[in-house]
């Protein structure tokens, strides 16, 4: 009974601009270690092959070193790796694939399907029909030839393609690299392994997007998985099991702070995330100075605990209470300035006002905590 892993969109070489020089490279590295885990999983499950449905590399001009590292990361699984070029790594006249071959970096068990022709894996019991992208974008369905391609009847017909299934995905309108949703039926495919969509998505019982194994954006449904596919015989219903494989979950939170207990809930929620994650937090609402101090402490703690913590406080207003002001000992006109800054947060440039208030309160706090009042 043929069994294989279906994955896609590894995007090796992807850099994470927004996360800065410390976290960015770590996330880049995480993609490679995930590949290593896939290889290990393949070996562990003793699958017949691993199908990678495009965008293995994030770009054509990835450094030689990265190219070599990717192929080395495959070591743990010595069965066939069946790789398809996607839009990021299309099989152009000069491509990352031609370079990888020039570098002699491609192990023998890696099959690069750079041309649209049937590849037979008789030993494994299936024939692969690839639809490689030979341009960055095409506007015709590259899987069309599957319909007329003949394969030995005893072998499974496995299609592998990279693009947008027409009429199914939300963002498919006028999107390039279209794929007919009826392709599996039309071409009598036992399974059609798709890439391009980074979330995990079932199109039909024979057509799946595996999604990217290592999440790389906040909006991504079911990313971080791959498909464990088993098919008894040609024509049989595939048994598809998603397996989580990713390292960092990406969380995007938007919270509103209105009353004191909102802050308590947020802090509790933050503290309760167990795995190291990539978190994007946007806060809005109002907070007094004491609450702001607690929030900063909690954010500092979360930043240390997680791979990445991004937070946006632009919509959060600092509303000092009388107690705040009393605690700051902001007497005389300083008190007036504090009030004025609080009011300014209602105006356009509230971000600046909030920050100014933060600076003022921290100065006052320092002064009364460390120094002696004059």
């Amino acid at each position, binding site marked *: 009974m043929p069994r294989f892993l279906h994955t896609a969109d590894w995007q090796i070489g992807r850099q994470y601009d927004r996360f800065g020089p410390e976290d960015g490279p770590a996330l880049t590295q995480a993609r490679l270690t995930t590949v290593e885990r896939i290889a290990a999983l393949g070996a562990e499950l003793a699958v017949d092959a691993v199908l990678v449905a495009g965008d293995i590399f994030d770009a054509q001009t990835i450094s030689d070193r990265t190219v070599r590292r990717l192929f080395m990361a495959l070591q743990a699984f010595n069965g066939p790796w069946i790789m398809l070029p996607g839009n990021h790594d299309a099989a152009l006249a*000069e491509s990352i694939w031609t370079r990888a071959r020039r570098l002699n970096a491609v192990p023998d068990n890696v099959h690069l399907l750079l041309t649209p022709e049937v590849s037979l894996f008789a030993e494994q019991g299936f024939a692969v029909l690839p639809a490689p992208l030979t*341009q960055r974008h095409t506007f015709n369905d590259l899987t069309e030839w599957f319909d007329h391609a003949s394969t030995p009847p005893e072998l499974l017909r496995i299609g592998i393609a990279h693009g947008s299934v027409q009429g199914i995905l939300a963002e498919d309108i006028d999107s390039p690299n279209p794929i007919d949703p009826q392709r599996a039926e039309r071409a009598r495919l036992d399974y059609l392994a798709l890439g391009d969509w980074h979330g995990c998505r079932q199109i039909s019982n024979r057509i799946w997007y595996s999604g990217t194994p290592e999440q790389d954006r906040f909006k991504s449904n079911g990313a971080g998985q791959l498909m464990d596919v088993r098919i008894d015989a040609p024509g049989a219903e595939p048994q598809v099991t998603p397996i989580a494989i990713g390292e960092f979950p990406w969380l995007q939170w938007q919270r509103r702070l209105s009353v004191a207990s909102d802050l308590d809930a947020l802090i509790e929620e933050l503290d309760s995330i167990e795995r190291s994650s990539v978190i994007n937090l946007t806060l809005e609402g109002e907070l007094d100075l004491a609450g702001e101090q607690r929030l900063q402490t909690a954010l500092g703690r979360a930043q240390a605990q997680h791979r990445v913590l991004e937070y946006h406080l632009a919509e959060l207003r600092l509303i000092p209470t009388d107690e705040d002001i009393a605690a700051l000992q902001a007497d005389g006109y300083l008190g007036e300035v504090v009030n004025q800054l609080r009011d300014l947060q209602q105006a356009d440039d509230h971000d600046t006002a909030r920050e100014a208030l933060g600076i003022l309160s921290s100065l006052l706090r320092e002064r009364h905590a460390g120094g002696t009042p004059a």
Partner: protein
Amino acid sequence: MKLQQLRVSQFRQFREPLSIDGFGAGINLICGPNESGKSTLVRAIRAAFFERHSSGTLGDLRPWGDSGAAPEVELVFTHAGKQWQLSKRFLQRKRCDLTVEGERFSGDEAEDKLAAMLGFTVATRGASKAEHWGIPGLLWIEQGMGQELGEAVTHAGDHLKSVLGASLGEMTSSDGDEITRQVRSRLEELLTGGGKPRGDYKASIERLAALGSDLRELDQRIISYRQQVDRLGELRQQQASDEAERPWQTLRAQQQEAEQKQAEVTLLADQQQREMQELEQNRNSRQMVLDQLRAHDEQSEDLQQRQSKAQQLLGQLERLSAQHAELAATRDTALAAYQQAREQERKAHQLARRQTLEREQQQLLRQQQQYQTSVAQARQLQSDLLEQQQRLAAIRVDDTQFARLEALQTQLRELNIRQQSIATRLRFELLPDQQMSVGGELVNCTGESLLLQETWIEIAGVGQLTITPGGQDLGELVRQIERGQEQLQALLDELQVVSLDAAREQLELGRTLNTAILTNRRLQAGHAPEGIDALTQQLTVGKTRLSELEQELHGLPTLAEEQLPPINIAEQALEQAAGRLQQAEKATGEHNETLIKLRQNVASADEECRLLQARLDDPQRRQQQLQLNDSLLALRADQTRLEQLTQERAARIANARPDILEQDIQRYSASAAQLEQTFNQRREELIALQARLQSEGADGLEENRAKLAAELESESRRHQQLESRANALNLLHGLLSEKRQQLTRQLQAPLQKHLDHYLQLLFPQARLEVDENLLPGRLIRHGQEADEFDALSFGSREQMGLISRLAYADLLREVGRPTLIILDDALVHSDQPRLEQMKRILFDAAQRHQVLLFSCHPDKWRDMGVPAREMEGLKVTATGS
């Protein structure tokens, strides 16, 4: 605060207790000379308030030399509606007691209470100094210190502000200035005074720009790389398609096809050209045949013309021949007439000569007779002359005669020459032993004769030939020569010379002799003027002449005079006869010439006609004519055939468009070469492009770009943070400064009001600015430049100082603070007019404040409305009480 009573004892110069009471609510003027104790009183008041009673360093308070003294000061005053009593003793039995409405404070507590109430600081140890004095330091002016305001205000500043600030509610801030300073220093780390980024902020901006530029450059390279990859793909596809299709081969085949067509057309054109030449030849041949036929026709016409012309000539000849005899007769008549005339003329000449000679003879004979008688006398004349004359007389030739002779000779010579040139030459070469007679003269062998007239040649056994010389003038010429010779001979005879040369000799001799005779006669005339000799001589001459004449006459024939015409008539007749003869001869000659010419013409015309006729009658010529007509027909048929052929072929050639075929060949050939070249070039470009892409691809362009983008993003975030921090700091600093300024303005406002109040009394419409430390700043007077306080004159500063202090006092009073004003020798530097104004100001202030005015010039203050209290008087009173 109103001081009511002051008491001191054992205090400096007041060893004895001194008590002063009865202080008024306004001005209290205390006068006394120097060293009278005014300043000691001031010192006492200061000590009572400022000095710690427990201080051990106040030895100066003791009376001089009294080390055991315990200086003591007691003050009674009212403040805030309460009665206060302060009692302080220093150095010995130190104590301090403060009683307020029955409530009692003592020691440090009492001193602190006073300090808080009046607004000063109690020195923690030692004597109290200016920096401790606070508000009283401002209001209590020491001697000679009225102009120094800044320090006093500074020392009073905090007290003033806190005191005054209290009236402004919660506006003041204990930490405000410090916080503002910190905010400013943090802001200055990021922005310059002008609001430009500096430090980290600036570095971040620069780095951001550098990264952005690097990124753009890299983007450009990536775009270029992608374009090259696309190009590579395209080229490969094109190359593969070219390799499969080899389009240049198709083009070459097309080229060959076109070339074949072109060859066919060339062949046709050659053929065409040949036939066109043939056509041309045909045309030439036709022309030739036509020409020949026309020539035949012309020959017939020519013959007819010539025959008619010959006929005409013949008629003419007959006419002329008939005229010939007539003309010959006319000539003969003329000749005979001429010869007769010539004879007449010759005889006439001879006759004329004879008559001349006879007349001379007659004359000479008469002369001889006339002078016969005188000849004898004449013989006596010199023999030489005679002889010469005789010789001369022998000479007949004179110049005239000689000239005539010469002319005749010349004429004759010319005639001979002409005759020689036109005479008919007869040259003969006779066989030996043969002879003939020419003009009656026998000749033989070889010879030449000039025939001047019709000559008969007789040849024995042959007959007679008559030769008439043809020259028209010849007859006339012979006659002229004969006449010329006769004339010449006659003249020679007349001159008695044989030749012209002899005549010339005679002439020369005559001339010589004449010359000699003239000479001799002149000599003779000189010796003998009478003419006898001459006569004698003449007689002799006459005689000689007579004999000569006789001799000559003798030689001349005797002619009948009456038969002869006069000589001139004879000459004229001769001339006329010669003319007629000449005419006749000329007519005859011309006629002969014409006749001969005509005969020749007739002969040649006849010959021509004969020849032409012969030719026309030639049978060969007839044959030729027939042939020519046949070939003309053949040529016309051939022409028609050729014209049709060439027209058809020309159409075929035109349809084939050889020019376009040529272009097609070039086009196909160039296109094929172009395509092949493109193919080869593309192959090279492919290799180069592939190599370039391989090296570029290995650089990891997009990976580098992503890294750079990450750096840029990070830097951009940092920049954003710095920017918002700078903005926040800027905002904060702005707010703080604004609040602080606002506060200061609020503080200043009442002070300004009071200052203005006093200032108007001194300088109407002037204004004294107050800075944020409540220090007087610039003085702005009407119509003058603003002056900084410190730049004012000593006197003005003193006046402004006092005004300011009074204003502070007003301000303090408004918030219920104690305001005692002490002036120790104030306004000593003011001139009279200013002092007057200042007194008004002071008096006005005294309406609200108690003023203690100490002075050593009581007369200056007489007009203050209060009595001056003399120090000496006070001391006396104290001692007295």
